[in-house]
C-alpha cells in the first residue's frame, strides 16, 4: 500500500490551538510525523525589552492563559534574584496558593479535554462543571478568572482575609470528593483503561534522552519536580509527594495528573492553615541593577524557565522563555510514530500542549565558533543539493517544489 501524507492543523477540530502536523501514513499506522510551529508567535520576548519590569509582568502573564501565574512567577523570581530581594513569607505563601489552584484548574481542564478527545463527553462536561468551582475561587481571591495579576516584583498585590480562607477550605472539600471520583474513573473504568493503555508509549530512557518535563516525564517513572528539586516560594516548608507512574503511556499521564490534583489540595490546605502574618510585598525601585538570573518554576505542564538580563535601567535587556511544551514537543513525534492515526489527537493532548507558550524564536549558535546554524530557504536548498552531490546524486536541476 502506498504511503500517504496527511496534514493535521493548523485549524482542526481535534486541536484546541493552531499547530500543524504532517503525518506520513502507512495504512492506519503513522510512519513518520513532523511538527510545524510558529502560528502563535507574537514576538513577546522582544516586546519585553521595550516595556518596564512592571509592565512585563502583565505581558508575560499573557504568554499563556492557562499557566499565566507560572509565567509571571517565574519572571518575577528572576527579577527578584537580580535585585537581591527577599519576598515576605506571606507573599510566598500566597503565590503558592494561587500556583496550586492554577494547577488544579489546569489539570481538571486537561482531564476534560482528554475526555473530549477520546469521545467521553460525559467526563468532559462533569470535569468542566467542577472546574468552575476553582475558577470562582480564583476570581474571589484575585479578581479575575484567568490572568490573575497577582504577582508583582517584591511580593503579591492582594491579600486574603478570613472569609476567603473559609471559602477556599469549603470549595476544597467539594473538589476533593469530586476528584476522588475521577481517580476512580481513571483507574478502574474499563473503557478509559482500554482506550488509553499502551497508547503513546514513551519509555523512561526515551523520556530522559528527549528531555521531557512535567507529568509526561513523571509518567515515565522519573521523579523530577522543581517544587522538590529546586524549591521556590513556600514549597520547602510544605509536605507533599511527587507523583510518578510506570505506565509510560497516556494512561500513566492521566493517572499522574489526577493524583497530582489531590496533592495540590493537600498543599492548599497546608498553605491556608499555616499562612504567616505580615506584609505581602516589599518596595522595589523601578531600576533594577545590572545582572542576569535564571529561574525555574514547576508549571502545571512541567518545568518553566525564564532568563532575565538587566542593564541598570527600568527595562530588561533580554528576557528568554522556555515553556514546558517546547521541551515535551521533542518526544511527541516519538510517541506518535508507530501508533494509529485515531490515537494522534489524544497522544498530542496527553502532553497537555500549550502552543501559545511554545512559539518562541530560537537561534542556534555554536558556543565555540560563534557560527549560527540557521538557514534561510535558499541556503537550506543549496545545502541539500551539496549533500546529495557528495553522494553522487545531482539534484541541482530539479525544480523547487516551493517558491523561494
Amino acid at each position, binding site marked *: 500500500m502506498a504511503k500517504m501524507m496527511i496534514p493535521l492543523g493548523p*485549524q482542526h477540530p481535534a486541536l484546541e490551538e493552531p499547530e500543524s502536523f504532517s503525518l506520513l501514513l502507512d495504512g492506519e499506522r503513522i510512519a513518520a510525523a513532523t511538527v510545524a510551529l510558529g*502560528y502563535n508567535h507574537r514576538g513577546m520576548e522582544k*516586546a519585553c525589552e521595550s516595556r518596564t519590569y512592571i509592565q512585563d509582568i502583565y505581558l508575560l502573564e499573557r504568554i499563556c*492563559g492557562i499557566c499565566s501565574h507560572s509565567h509571571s512567577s517565574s519572571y518575577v523570581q528572576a527579577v527578584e534574584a537580580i535585585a537581591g530581594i527577599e519576598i515576605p513569607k506571606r507573599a510566598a505563601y500566597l503565590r503558592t496558593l494561587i500556583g496550586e489552584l492554577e494547577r488544579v484548574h489546569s489539570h481538571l481542564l486537561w482531564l476534560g479535554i482528554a475526555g473530549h478527545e477520546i469521545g467521553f463527553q460525559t467526563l468532559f*462536561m462533569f470535569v468542566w462543571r467542577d472546574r468552575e468551582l476553582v475558577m470562582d475561587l480564583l476570581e474571589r481571591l484575585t479578581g479575575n*478568572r484567568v490572568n490573575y495579576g497577582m504577582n508583582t516584583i517584591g511580593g503579591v498585590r492582594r491579600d486574603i482575609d478570613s472569609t476567603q480562607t473559609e471559602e477556599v477550605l469549603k470549595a476544597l472539600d467539594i473538589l476533593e470528593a469530586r476528584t476522588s471520583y475521577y481517580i476512580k474513573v481513571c483507574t478502574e473504568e474499563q473503557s478509559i483503561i482500554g482506550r488509553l493503555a499502551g497508547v503513546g508509549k514513551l519509555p523512561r530512557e526515551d523520556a530522559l534522552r528527549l528531555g521531557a518535563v512535567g507529568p509526561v516525564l513523571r509518567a515515565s517513572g522519573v521523579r523530577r519536580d522543581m517544587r522538590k528539586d529546586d524549591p521556590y516560594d513556600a514549597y520547602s516548608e510544605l509536605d507533599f509527594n511527587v507523583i510518578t507512574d510506570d505506565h509510560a503511556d497516556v494512561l500513566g499521564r492521566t493517572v499522574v495528573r489526577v493524583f497530582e490534583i489531590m496533592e495540590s489540595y493537600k498543599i492548599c490546605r497546608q498553605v491556608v492553615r499555616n499562612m504567616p502574618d505580615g506584609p505581602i510585598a516589599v518596595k522595589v525601585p523601578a531600576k533594577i541593577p545590572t545582572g542576569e538570573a535564571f529561574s525555574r518554576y514547576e508549571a502545571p505542564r512541567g518545568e518553566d524557565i525564564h532568563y532575565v538580563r538587566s542593564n541598570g535601567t527600568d527595562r530588561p535587556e533580554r528576557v528568554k522563555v522556555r515553556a514546558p511544551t517546547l521541551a515535551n514537543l521533542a518526544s511527541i513525534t516519538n510517541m506518535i510514530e508507530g501508533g494509529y492515526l485515531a490515537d494522534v489527537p489524544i497522544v498530542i493532548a496527553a502532553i497537555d500542549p500549550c502552543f501559545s507558550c511554545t512559539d518562541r524564536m530560537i537561534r542556534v549558535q555554536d558556543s565555540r565558533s560563534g557560527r549560527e546554524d540557521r538557514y534561510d530557504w535558499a541556503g537550506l536548498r543549496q545545502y541539500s543539493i551539496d549533500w546529495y552531490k557528495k553522494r553522487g546524486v545531482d539534484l541541482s536541476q530539479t525544480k523547487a517544489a516551493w517558491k523561494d
Partner: protein
Amino acid sequence: MLFDKAIHWARLKSPWIIHFNSGACNACDIEILAALTPKYDVERFGIQLKGSPRHADVLVCSGPVTMQQRERLITIYEQMAEPKFVIAVGTCACSAGVFNGCYCVEGGVDTAIPVNAYVPGCPVKPEAVIDGVVKLLKSIE
C-alpha cells in the same frame, strides 16, 4: 416566502459557531469553551460548536492576528457559507491589546476580515461571550 422565514427563524434559534484561535494566549479560548459547558451551557440557546467552517454560521475569533495566522484566518472565513458573522472575542481580537506593537502581530481581527460584534475583556468572561452572541442575534433580527 414561508421558506425564507423558516430559514431565518432557524438561523436565529440555532446559530452554529466555529472557534478560531488567530494567535491568542488560550485564556479566551478556554473561556469560550467554558461557555459551552454545564455552568453556562450556551447549547440551551441552540448554539453548537462545530469543527468545520462549512458547517458554521458564526466565526468566533480570539487573539490578535499574527503574521502566520492571517492567511489562514482569511481562508477559514472564505470557506464559510453566506450569510456569515464574525465575533471578535477578547481585547486582543478587538485591538491587539497588550500585543499591540509586537513585530509579529498585525492587529485586531478586523485588520484581516470584517467583524460584526466585539466582546472586549482580558480574558472575556463566559457571560460576556453569551452576551455578545445574544446581541449579535438581536442585530440579525
